């Protein structure tokens, strides 16, 4: 085993044999000094997770979070020096983390926080000017097949739990005791100017925006939303997307696709 291989193994696994060939000026046990590195590695990665998942951290408390994150770090060490992406799959880990089973919404709260981090660092795209959007929407014959491109920061999350309310309560926006976590909620995450915002969407609105994200043309996306909830309010959802600068491109249907020979 190479020195660095032995180092790497021993850094992540406290039961792994300690690397040989190390010395200290006073002959003291190098293990104590090696522990500085072990602590640096594990603590800094736990800190990175605590930064990315502040509400998960608050929900379980400092001691529990650090113990839980330590398990994650040891079984899922980073594979890239871009730590900003570290822990993208933390939610999946939480789902299977038995000691946290008493908080069934924890994984979805983590998914919401992962969407917030992603939104914060997502590429910059200018919003399409409102006049351009208005002009396209004023051409009814094209509306059905109009493809709406949304901002890369935008994310939608549907959950059987009241994750938007839970998140808002941890921002001090509403009292935690008024939140019933067992109410399904749908979250819209986007970056408006430089601020990441989290909003609650109606179920049909979430369905609609998810369809647009997948490139489903406007008319078909609206139809799917309407079948989920007949009271779906298309103009309200479009107004929300326009107001938050979430629409970056419109692709009208190509004339060539019309009147193709059968």
């Amino acid at each position, binding site marked *: 085993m190479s020195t660095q291989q032995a180092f790497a193994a021993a850094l992540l696994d406290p039961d792994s044999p300690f690397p040989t060939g190390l010395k*200290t000026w*006073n002959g003291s*046990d190098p293990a104590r*000094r090696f522990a500085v590195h072990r602590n640096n590695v594990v603590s800094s990665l736990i800190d990175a997770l605590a930064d990315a998942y502040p509400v998960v951290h608050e929900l379980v408390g400092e001691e529990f979070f650090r113990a839980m994150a330590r398990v994650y770090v040891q079984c899922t*060490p980073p594979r890239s020096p871009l730590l900003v992406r570290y822990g993208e799959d933390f939610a999946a880990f939480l789902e299977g983390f038995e000691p946290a089973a008493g908080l069934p919404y924890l994984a979805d709260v983590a998914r919401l926080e992962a969407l917030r981090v992603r939104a914060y*660092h997502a590429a*910059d*795209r200018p919003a399409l000017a409102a006049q351009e959007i208005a002009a396209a929407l004023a051409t009814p014959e094209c509306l059905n097949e109009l493809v709406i491109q949304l901002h890369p920061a935008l994310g939608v999350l549907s959950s059987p739990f009241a994750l938007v309310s839970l998140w808002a309560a941890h921002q001090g926006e509403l009292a935690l005791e008024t939140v019933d976590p067992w109410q399904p909620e749908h979250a819209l995450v986007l970056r408006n100017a430089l601020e990441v915002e989290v909003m609650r969407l109606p179920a049909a609105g979430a369905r609609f925006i998810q369809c647009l994200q997948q490139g489903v043309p406007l008319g078909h996306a609206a139809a799917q939303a309407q079948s989920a909830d007949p009271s779906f309010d298309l103009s309200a959802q479009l107004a929300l997307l326009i107001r938050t600068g979430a629409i970056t491109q419109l692709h009208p249907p190509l004339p060539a696709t019309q009147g193709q020979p059968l």
Partner: protein
Amino acid sequence: MIKIDSPLSDPNSSAPACGASLPARAGLGLKPQHYREILESAVDLGFFEIHAENYMVDGGPFHHYLGLIRQRYPLSLHGVGLSIGAEGPLDEAHLDRLTELIERYSPQAFSEHLAWSSHGGLFLNDLLPVAYDAATLARVCEHIDRVQSRLQRRMLLENPATYLEFARSSMDEASFICEVVRRTGCGLLLDVNNAYVSSINHRRDPYAYIDALPLDAVGEIHLAGFAEDSDGAGARLLIDSHGAPVDDAVWTLYARVLQRIGPTPTLIERDNQVPALQVLLAEARQAERLLMSSRPRPQQASA
């Protein structure tokens, strides 16, 4: 060995944000919680330094604010993830990302560490020590040659803070660094806190250690705070924590370095328990007082 046009050829320049080199003043690490205050109060500071990896993101507030701050201040780009001391090859994708950042922000300096942090596809997020032997020397020089030719600029190599030594080391750290600088033409980022921490941890004389370094290659200085611990025999063990003010012993050593090499761009490093900007600015002013007093006396009055 390669010859690269050095962006640090004029370390005494007081050029504005567009200058070719860092000014011989104090700088601070750029922290997101200080972005607005920096811009609103137009703080008087020599330069800012960023950790390259934090800005390897597509867009958003980090690039927005860095763009604005870069228009107003010189910039030092400090890598923490290139793993120059690794046994394996350099991460070419990471070099590409560094190249992109350098093209976007034209920093006045680029620096990395004499350490490793990646192995076998894992990133360990710590600056891990290397043995000072011929094999490591050859590998580190090869990696630095590659970095300098890919980035098309001279890099500064930072001396490490270490806690352990390798039985197989065949030279001391200062000799190793001298040889790297000689072979690759890279510059030295002299971290005075690291020099102090390592010297205490291995019971060496920090003054003798610094005197043995290639001081004419120093392009930037780092100052930081350390934490106190003890080793298995109860001896002092200092931890390079970046979480405390600069220690008096490090200020004293810094003053001595300045007497030797003259005014040199100096960063106050604080990455943990980051205090208010004003607290860091006070430390930067302390560095600037020492920088001023180390300036050579004017030879003649300028007309």
